[in-house]
């Protein structure tokens, strides 16, 4: 077991980081916002931590908190103009946001290190810390999902016009979703800095966006199990496909197509839905048999 952990530890750690970024992406989807700003939030968080940790005396713990707050604030600000946009327009506007962040990171060489990025970041994060933070994030999201806010998010996602006619302030909830998405993205971006020694703008580019979108869509866009399953598949794919050498990427593509074609809601969501359906069916059966019993009593 410990041998297994030692050999596969980086995969486990990257899996946990991907789950974190997945939640940042997913919270936007849950509220019906087609945002792909997570890459931008992650970049802000990781640079914030990297700069503070390498150039100032701020305690490491505080740098992560600050990164989370900064990315949350940026998320909140970003939500204001985006409130006017819908669907694919939101997606493109957030893509523009990510591209702007990336090119500023490349351009501001004196401050951000340009293409070289920032090196020599202390490695303060290990598997257990990541596991703890993922668990806390899940706990918070679980509670949000069960609260009134979670129900509003569901309503917004399914039918915005209905939610609006019921008097829901859509703008407010979109801002909340963006703040949460920013906070989670910044938090895990910061943790990533403290894990990989070195960061560069390239880490948060097109590949990052595509990867995180895949994690969430493949895993599931509404349940907490979604990003976990998605990240698991994305972490295991390269390992499973390794013997295929140069065909690896093509095989990854085939697997993505097959999984999403047969499980269009994503693996995690389909699993949860299946359990829910079973539970409902059982309750219905129970109700039906109770009713039968009642009918039998009354009719006699």
């Amino acid at each position, binding site marked *: 077991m410990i*041998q297994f952990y*030692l*050999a*596969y*530890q*980086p*995969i486990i750690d*990257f899996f946990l980081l991907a789950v974190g970024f997945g939640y940042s992406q997913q919270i936007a989807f849950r509220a019906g916002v087609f945002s792909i700003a997570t890459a931008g939030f992650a970049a802000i968080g990781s640079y914030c931590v990297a700069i503070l940790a390498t150039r100032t005396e701020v305690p490491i713990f505080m740098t992560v908190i600050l990164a989370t707050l900064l990315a949350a604030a940026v998320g909140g600000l970003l939500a204001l103009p985006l409130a006017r946009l819908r669907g694919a327009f939101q997606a493109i506007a957030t893509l523009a946001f990510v591209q702007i962040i990336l090119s500023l990171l*490349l351009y501001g060489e004196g401050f951000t290190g*340009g*293409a*070289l*990025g920032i*090196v*020599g970041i202390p*490695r303060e994060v290990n598997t257990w810390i990541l596991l703890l933070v993922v668990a806390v994030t899940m706990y918070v999201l679980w509670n949000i999902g069960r609260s009134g806010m979670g129900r509003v998010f569901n309503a917004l996602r399914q039918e915005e016009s209905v939610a609006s006619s019921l008097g829901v302030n859509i703008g407010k909830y979109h801002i909340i979703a963006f703040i949460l998405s920013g906070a989670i993205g910044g938090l895990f971006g910061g943790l990533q800095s403290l894990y*990989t*020694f*070195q960061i*560069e*703008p*390239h*880490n948060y580019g097109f590949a990052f966006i595509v990867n995180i979108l895949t994690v969430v869509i493949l895993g599931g866009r509404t349940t907490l199990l979604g990003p976990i399953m998605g990240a698991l598949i994305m*972490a295991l794919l*390269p*390992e499973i496909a390794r013997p295929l*050498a*140069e065909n*690896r*990427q093509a095989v990854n593509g085939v697997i993505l197509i097959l999984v999403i074609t047969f499980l269009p809601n994503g693996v995690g969501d389909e699993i949860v839905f299946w359990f829910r359906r079973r539970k409902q069916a059982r309750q219905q059966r129970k109700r039906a048999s109770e009713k039968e019993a009642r009918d039998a009593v009354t009719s006699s």
Partner: protein
Amino acid sequence: MKIRTLMLAATCGAAVTAAAPGAHAEDYKVVILQSLTGGAAFIGKNVAEGAAMAAEEMNENGYFGEGNRMDFEVADDATDRTQTLSLITRLAADPELLLVMGPTSGSVAMAGASVANERELPIITTTNTFEVIEAGPWSNILTQPGTVTIPYIADFAAQDLGVKNCAIIGVKDNESYVALQRKFEELVQEQGVNLASVDGVALADSDFSALATKIATSEQDCVFVGTPASQGANIILQLKQAGLDPSTAILGHNAFASPTFIEKGGAAVEDVYLIGAWVPGGDGEFGEAFAANFEAKTGIAPDEWHANGYSGMQVVASAVRDAAASEGGATRASVLAALTAQKDVPVVIGGGTYSFDEERVPHFGMRVMQVKDGEFTLVDN
């Protein structure tokens, strides 16, 4: 019965005597871990091919002594940090493994360096960034950093060509190219050359029409193009098409020293100056033999990266042999110590010998070349 025992004893004896020289035979396990796929594959794949060929040759020639051989294996870092981290972690768990030649580039090499130092496994990465050396004693670099190479071309531009006003085109999104470009700017400015303009392109760009028009309509007597070979050829082609004054000197660094450069640039790259560790076709006996053998084996002429891989393996093999001869034999620690102590190893690149200095920085020299009639020719200076 008796006869059988006797026979058995005889066969056993024969087996023992036959195995006797083999008892000393040793396999030195080395993994060539390079980017065979992904963005850096144009470097990694070639380095791996060159290195594997060198190892095969040395095994055939009995380089490691009677019966001994290098047991090498080629693996793919996929230009991916995550995969590299897990691969090196797993490789480090194999007690037989002495050294990893790789990973290939930039952040991937840095990721590899972090694990290598943590697990005390010697690695020699293809990149030339100082950060890999600074990451710890176990991580080394194979190629010369810009501080070693760029002076060759910067001094040539400022002193031999005597340029006064230089336009710079670099790659903005790749750290090693940025570092080389900055070094060139710094060195020529120190020698009184003015920078007419500084522009950056992205590695994925191919549309340089706007940039080419801008430079072609400005005043300068020199253009420095610090990009990969095919992209650089393309930039120069578009500069010429935009009407750049033909008397402008065009310079590049060692990335241009590849057949691709001439293939892509055609007539447009005629007269371009560049530096290279590898003179195509080989310079000197060893280099020429390598070029001929490589082409015979693979059907293509070796480029800078093939030659670097081939040379790198010479250095690694020499280190392994020295370590094996040392007290205590070849261990990870002794291989590391021997590697960084290598001096004047015959190689096919640069000035023909490869040495590490006290800071573990490799030195093997650079040659200034010019494209003449579609061939790289040495410039005497």
